[in-house]
Each structure stands twice: as C-alpha cells, then as structure tokens.
C-alpha cells in the first residue's frame, strides 16, 4: 500500500510564507510521496515561487508537482519550473516520474490540463481561430498526458493535473464555468491507460470525490475543498 499526500491551490506568496510548514514537518509519518496539483502561487510571480520552493523543499518524501493557470499568469512558468526543480521539486508537464516505495513501484504522470468542458457541453475545434486554438490546447495537453501515462509500467499509476478530468468534482461551482474548469479529454487519457487514481485541483468550490466513465477514482485536492494542509489517499498496488 502506498500513501499519497496531495494538495493543490495553496496560492502562496510572501505573506503566506511558512503557513504549511508546521503541518509538513510530520509528512513522513503520513505519506510516502507529496503531490502538488498546481496554482502554487497567486500570480505566477518568481518571488511567490520562491516561497513555494522554500515551503516544499527538503521534505522527508519526494515532492511531485504540476503548475496551474495562476502559475502561468506572469509568463514565468519556465523560470518557476526551473526554480522548483533546483530545489528538488519535480515539475511534470506531459512527463512522468517513477518512484520505488518499498516493494511497490509508483508512476506519476502529470500535466496542467486545460478547460474545454464535458460530455455534450464542450467546445470543439471549429469556427474562429481563437476557438480552435483554445480547444487545440486542450487536445494537445491531453494527448501528452495520455502518452506519459501509457509509457508508465508500474504497480500503481497516478494522473496528476490542475484542471479536472470530470464534472463530478466540480459540484458546488457554478455550472456556467465548468468548461473553464476541466475537460473530458483528460478523462479519456486516464481511462485509456490503467490509472489507479486521478488527482486535480483548480475547483476551489468543488467537491473532493468523483469518478471517470471508466471507473477511475478522481480526487479534487484544492486546499479549500480538503480543508487541511494536504489529503492522504492509500492505494493498494497491483490490481
């Protein structure tokens, strides 16, 4: 059994420095790995990312992250990624990481994801170039996530995104904005690749639990949703 700690949408900045650190001190007692589901900063500024790096560096377990839309806001996503990587925080974007935890191998593939909407209420690559570009971004990111997941050959497989693969975990958000909160293409990638658990953030007013059409459990770990420094999920390997 592997214990997965996860949190998203911590939205840190200088004024929130150290806020999570007390709870993280005992992380090793709770979990084998920590996943960060994006929106680590408020506005994607480098000084905010520095706070994120300080908050999550040098923990007793590996820390794996994806960025969120807020982390892109200042066009510094590459610099933020480098800064976090330098401090030992693995940032995934259409990529994966494999960890060995005891007898078990754990694979995590991650991508920011994007909006686009869900079954019957989604955008498509049609019409104006702006609309095509929007949905093309959705499709490309989902394809990259699918390829990264397909590559993994591990006992347990986790998909980590910022945007949601399902509408279930958006309950509580206004339905009008669902197309900006996630897309069905992410779930298709997850359902095609034998994933054990899908973790996402972004929907601050959503709910924690959902499931894909293919029966993969989905958890929204946006910090306001889980109401703690992180959530912990225990996953049995080798189903």
């Amino acid at each position, binding site marked *: *059994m592997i*214990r997965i700690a996860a949190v998203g949408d*911590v*939205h*840190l*900045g200088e*004024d*929130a420095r150290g*806020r*999570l650190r*007390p*709870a993280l001190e*005992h992380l090793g007692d*709770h979990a084998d790995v920590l996943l960060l589901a994006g929106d680590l900063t408020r506005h994607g500024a480098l000084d905010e990312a520095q706070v994120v790096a300080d908050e999550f560096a040098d923990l007793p377990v590996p820390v794996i992250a994806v960025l969120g839309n807020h982390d892109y806001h200042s066009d510094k996503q590459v610099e933020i990624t480098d800064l976090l990587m330098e401090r030992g925080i693995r940032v995934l974007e259409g990529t994966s990481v494999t960890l060995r935890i005891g007898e078990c191998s754990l694979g995590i593939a991650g991508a920011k994801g994007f909006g686009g909407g869900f079954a019957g209420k989604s955008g498509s690559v049609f019409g104006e170039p702006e609309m095509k570009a929007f949905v093309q971004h959705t499709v490309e990111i989902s394809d990259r996530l699918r390829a990264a997941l397909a590559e993994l050959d591990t006992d347990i497989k986790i998909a980590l995104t910022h945007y949601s693969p399902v509408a279930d975990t958006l309950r509580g958000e206004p339905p009008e904005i669902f197309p900006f909160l996630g897309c069905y293409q992410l779930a298709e990638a997850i359902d095609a690749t034998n994933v*054990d*658990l899908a973790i996402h953030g972004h929907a*601050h007013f959503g709910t924690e639990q959902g499931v894909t059409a293919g029966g993969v*459990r989905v958890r929204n770990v946006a*910090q*306001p949703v*889980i*109401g*703690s*420094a*992180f*959530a*912990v*999920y*225990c*996953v*049995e390997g080798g189903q």
Partner: protein
Amino acid sequence: MTVRGEHIVVSGDVATEQRRAEISEVLRDVAPDMVIHNDIRVVCADEPTRREELR
C-alpha cells in the same frame, strides 16, 4: 460577491487572515456607504485528521 440593497456580501477562501482583512479594507474604500459582510474563510492548513483507503 453579492449585492443586496445596502449590503455587500463577499464569500470564498484565502490563505491568510491578512488577505481576508485586505478585502474588507478595499470594499470599505470603494463602497464607504455600504454595509459589508466579509464571509470569506481562511483555508485550514492543519495536518489532516483522516485518510482515505482506496480499494
């Protein structure tokens, strides 16, 4: 944010008490004659008290 007559109600979540207070300040600045209800919550950053076993 919801406006009802003289009342402004704001809700949502922020990471710190200071960010919550700043929102009240800004609202008082831009709408000095309105009654402000700040229902914004500071997100809990404590250790979790439970874990979920997925089978």
